[in-house]
């Protein structure tokens, strides 16, 4: 399975440019799409799942042009929209049954088996007879992922699936996805929560302002930040100055001041230790120093 995105642009009616010349290649496994709110992640995903026609450029799935082969591509798809909260009056299992039927499982017995299977997997079996809109937020998400996974999709697109979930739910969610990624499928996961990506994705891209700022593996991404993440102890007075100068990632209060972690291109006289960057550090660094100063970012990008 392979998705190629070529020179994709999307301009909305109000002239808002949501995507600008996006080129990406997505292979089997889990693909994380990182970016702040409004970066164009959802637009990209909606184009991927055939809900939206791009203004320019094309998407190819296994070499098939998406816009010409919607019927086939749709049969590969499972999609969890960002805002998965409102349901028509269907029970949990009926909702899945509906999705399964539309996913093309015609045999009723098979379908019900798969429905039960998935309910079990996402831990909703006990709630199978509850109306879907009576489920809790986390359960709704799980139901969402279940419906996205039903019918063995080759491409699963999940849009910000972990927003608003408690940590336990989030972990459970990640696990479901990583189990799935063992198979020969593409999972596209968009998020603005860095942790979602670091733990599961083998490929990622950073989207900002409709443009791709980075593509590659999370490791590569982190590597860009080597030597730009620092840790130091500051007094209350210094804290004010440093927070004006640099983006602070963490600040832990201690006697007489704070212990802070921050990212910076140059230290400009501050005394600090260099520490090993994490994905989160890399994200902040990119957003602060690369995304906002395009020239610099172009130099840095490979």
């Amino acid at each position, binding site marked *: 399975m392979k998705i190629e995105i070529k020179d994709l642009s999307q301009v909305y009616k109000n002239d808002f440019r949501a995507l600008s010349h996006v080129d990406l290649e997505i292979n089997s496994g889990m693909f994380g799409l990182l970016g702040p709110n409004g970066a164009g992640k959802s637009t990209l995903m909606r184009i991927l799942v055939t*809900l939206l026609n791009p203004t320019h450029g094309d998407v190819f799935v296994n070499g098939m042009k998406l816009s010409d082969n919607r019927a086939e591509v749709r049969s590969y798809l499972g999609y969890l929209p960002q805002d998965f909260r409102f349901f*028509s009056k269907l029970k949990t299992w009926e909702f899945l049954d509906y999705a399964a*039927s539309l996913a093309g499982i015609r045999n009723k017995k098979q379908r019900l088996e798969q429905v039960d299977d998935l309910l079990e997997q996402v831990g909703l079996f006990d709630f199978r007879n509850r109306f879907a809109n009576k489920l809790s937020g986390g359960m709704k998400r799980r139901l969402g992922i279940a419906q996205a996974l039903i019918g063995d999709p080759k491409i699963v697109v999940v849009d910000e699936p972990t927003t608003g979930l408690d940590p336990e739910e989030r972990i459970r969610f990640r696990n479901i996805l990583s189990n799935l990624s063992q198979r020969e499928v593409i999972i596209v996961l968009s998020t603005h929560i860095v942790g979602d990506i670091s733990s599961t994705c083998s490929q990622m891209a950073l989207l900002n302002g409709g443009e791709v700022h980075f593509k590659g593996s999370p490791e590569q991404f982190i590597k860009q930040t080597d030597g730009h993440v620092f840790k130091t102890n500051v007094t209350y007075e210094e804290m004010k100055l440093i927070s004006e100068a640099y983006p602070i990632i963490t600040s832990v209060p201690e006697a007489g001041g704070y212990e802070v972690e921050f990212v910076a291109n140059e230290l400009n006289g501050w005394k600090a230790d260099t520490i090993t960057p994490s994905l989160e550090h890399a994200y902040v660094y990119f957003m602060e120093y690369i995304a906002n100063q395009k020239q610099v970012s172009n130099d840095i990008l490979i």
Partner: protein
Amino acid sequence: MISLFNVKTVARFESKTLLRSWFFRIFAGIGLLFLLFFNMFGVTDLGDGGWPGRLLPSGVPYMNIWMLNIAQAIIAVFLSADFLGRDKKLDTTEAFYVRSMSNTDYVIGKTIGILKVFVGLNLMVVFLGLLFMLIANEVSIPWLSFLIYPLLMSLPTLVFILGLSFFTMTLIRNQAITFVVLLGFLALSLFYLQNKWYALSDILGFWTPFMRSDFTGFGNELALIYQRFAYLLLGVGFILATIWRLPRLEQAKGQKPILGLFLIMFFVGGASLLFMKAKMDQDNLTLRSEMRTLNTNLKESSYLIEAYAIKFKHEKDQISVDAELGIHALADNANELVLALNPGLKIRQANVNGTRVSYKRDKHLAYFDLKGVNASRFNLSLNYEGEIIDAALFPEIADEVLLDENRIDPLLANKQGSFVTDKYVLLTREANWYPVVASKLYWTSYPFTTMDIEVSTANDLEVISQGSRDVNENVFRYISNEPLNAHSIVIGEFERLTTNIDSIEFNLYYHPSHDYFKEHFSELSDTASVVIKSVKDDFERKLGLKYPFQRFSIVEAPINMYSYLRNWTLATENIMPEMVLFPENGGGDWQNDLSRITRRTKRRKEDQNEAVSDKELQTDVIKNFLGDNFIQPRSFFWGRQREGERSVENWGRYQIFPSYFSYSNSIVEENYPLLTIALENYYHQRLSETRRRGIGGLSANDEVILKLRDKSLVELIDEEDVNMLGNVFASKGSQLFSGLKINTNQSNFNVELDTLLTRSRFSNIALDNFSTSLSEISNLDFEKVYNNWLNEQYKPAFLFGEVSVWEVKDGNRVRFFMKVPVSNSGDADGIIAFTVREGQQRRGGRGRFRSRNDMEDDANEQSFQIKKGETAEIGFLLDDEPRELKVNTFLARNIPSTQQLSTGDIIKDKRKVDFYEGKRLSTKTIKYKEPYEIIVDNEDEGCEIINTGESKTIKDWWLSRQNEDDENDTYGMIRFWSPPVKWKPVAGESFFGEYLKSAYYKRKGSGTGSITWTADITETGNYEVYAYVPDFNFGWGRGRDRKSVDKDYEFTVHHDDGDEAITVTINKENNQWVYLGDFYFSEGKAKVQLSDMTNVEYVIGDAVKWVKK
């Protein structure tokens, strides 16, 4: 392109969601509950009322689906506008949008899902109807109708509404606005467009006749199919358009063109059907207007058909006829014969005495060139065949009357005048199935001719026509026993019951499945004839004429048969010589709901503690049945019913009266048959009962007075459409004959007139001969009287003095002498008729349901002529105390023309009173007012009204709009349930006035609206001031139980010492001339004002008088 599996899946879940929606559950539940109750109480006799329409063929399925259709249209709007709204709101929908299905699958699936649920609803309703019909077990179950109505009414409506709402939602994309737009559209079609514009906008089928006859089905199948299928196709078109506009990327490229093609196909298909329907209707209207034009150009013909010999063949929906016409040429130089024949019948051949004659056909007319025919009597043989064009019947009926719906409360029946189907034929004279001479105004009066007809039709069909019947191997032959002016033919599957009463053959022909009446008359096998005879004898005694035919048949006619009442005759096409064409199962009329009548009669008897046997009960029921339908029809009717009006509501279509007059007598008049109308009306009045009217409003006669205010009858005919003058003819007619009999012994006049009519039966009497005979029996120069009657515009005007009654001794008997002073101050001699009722009123049964066909009448009417300028005192010598004295002033200036005079207390003075009977001239004058009085009535110049002007509330606005409907009739009646926002004139005997008793009234107001009466005071001094306020008490209570309510009226008297506000309380004790006070006025204008502020719902302003002290 379409995956059935996907469609089914979407449909399955859509229905599931729909069924779970509370909105649907609640509304469908309410609807079903309502229909359950309707079926329970309307169809079975669980409820006392019952719905008489249940007896109609297919009445139950029609009514159920008809009601359901309104409810489900509204539900469908809500639900389907919700359809895309829900899709937009729910992100979960997107999870399904990415599935591999086409947009077509999705939208069609959704539609089918919704439809499935509604189909279920329809099934439940059908089941309800069936169930309760089975329980009621009264009439046979119309199985097919239970299938046809949902398919024909419900389905197209649903598909259209669904499609339209879907599509509107894709356009407007706002649920609330979509609701408003769609519901507005529905309301527009339901309440405003109705059946206007060829009924093209009647989405719900609410205004389209769907009544289905057991004989002939819908009758307008083609129109129904055009209209209903148009909605179906348009609905599908809209659904396709929704697919087109669905906010989801299409599954595969290249689908849109195909979709577009289908879309255009469906829209074009739907639009063409609507166009075809409109064209069909328009063609009919055009044909009728062309026929009218041809008719107005007709000239007096010099030919007369004396005899018909006809061979009539019926096959499927066609007839073919060989007709032999015995023709009499009345003039030597005649050379063109114009015949009228239904335009659908094509003449194949025409011969005179064996030689071909040429002819020209134009619509219904055929012009025969008879130049070469010199004989004064000859035979014209015609061969013609074809279909009967129903639209060609009643061509003179105005389009708006034609397009008016035929509502059989509350359902709609078609308006057909003729029927030719493979199983049923009904052709009356109006269908022009046999040729008649098209003379000027030929349709108003037909000459008498004999008929010898041979009919062949399909096996096992019965043929009914006039005359003696002879059946020979499936050929029916009828030879008329006397010349008739109408011939009709009915063919169909009939059962026949027959009996001979008084040497008249009585037949009942009914549809084999319409035998529900039998159980109600099961005990009457030997008494029915006695009952019928007594009803008949009573009727004839009252009418003064004998039944002219040898047969009387009640023949069931399709429920969709409709006949118009025309102003020149009281006969409708429902009554033909020797037969009444009676609607199937009684036509859904209240009076023909036999089980209900039986139940009521029984209960009444039980209430009166009368033991009653089934036989007696059934005797009562059959008397009611005969009386209500044929003798003195009075239909139960929600609306204003006007005394003396020539309308079907008042007279009934099936009354037997025309057999005694219209179908047995004819006076040949050159123009409008005015004398015939006058005579008919005179006879018909012998049968009528007059009723009291209290709350004002004008009777038909009063309106005639207004119309004839400054015009003679001839002038009026010149100015106005004669079709609107039925009431004028009626009033003028009764005036003519009341005048004729004044000069002679009144009962002799009647007897001689009866003899004259009986003698001249079945012959075409020339006007001259008839007027000579009338002159003889009335001792008047009838021709002169008649000409005056036509051309004079003068009017008498009557004033009545105080009526006095004395107890007197006449020999040994105590009797009562009543004296009524009356004067005629008009400019012509006039006639008044008094009706006196004596003794205590007997308590009859309740309302219209009491048996009133015994025709006993304790009233006696006496007419007197009062010459112009004359004052007379009319004396009555009575055996009993007078209870009621009514006077009819006919066409005088008095409005209302019938009023009740108060008789006052009986004077038991021992002094001798000079009592007498009849008219004595008097020298005392009767005055409207005394010289020392000044009266300002609402009709006078001194009376001025001030309206509050603008409507303040929506209710005001709505009321004023409603009142606008009545704007054209000058004097209304008091509408206590919704009084007008502005002062409106009302007339009635309770009001004050010199000749025109009228007043103003309006809804209670804030005091800004008022009436001012201004008098010209010529003499300074003290005056007593009175205001006239009649006391009305309205409410839903019955007659004497009504309480008198105190009504406060705010008057202001403007007098020399200032203004004085006076509140007077009007009630049972204090009304009419109410004393306002004693005031000083100097010479000049004096004013009294009445405010519209009151404690009750409306104010009446009538008159004020100043009495000099």
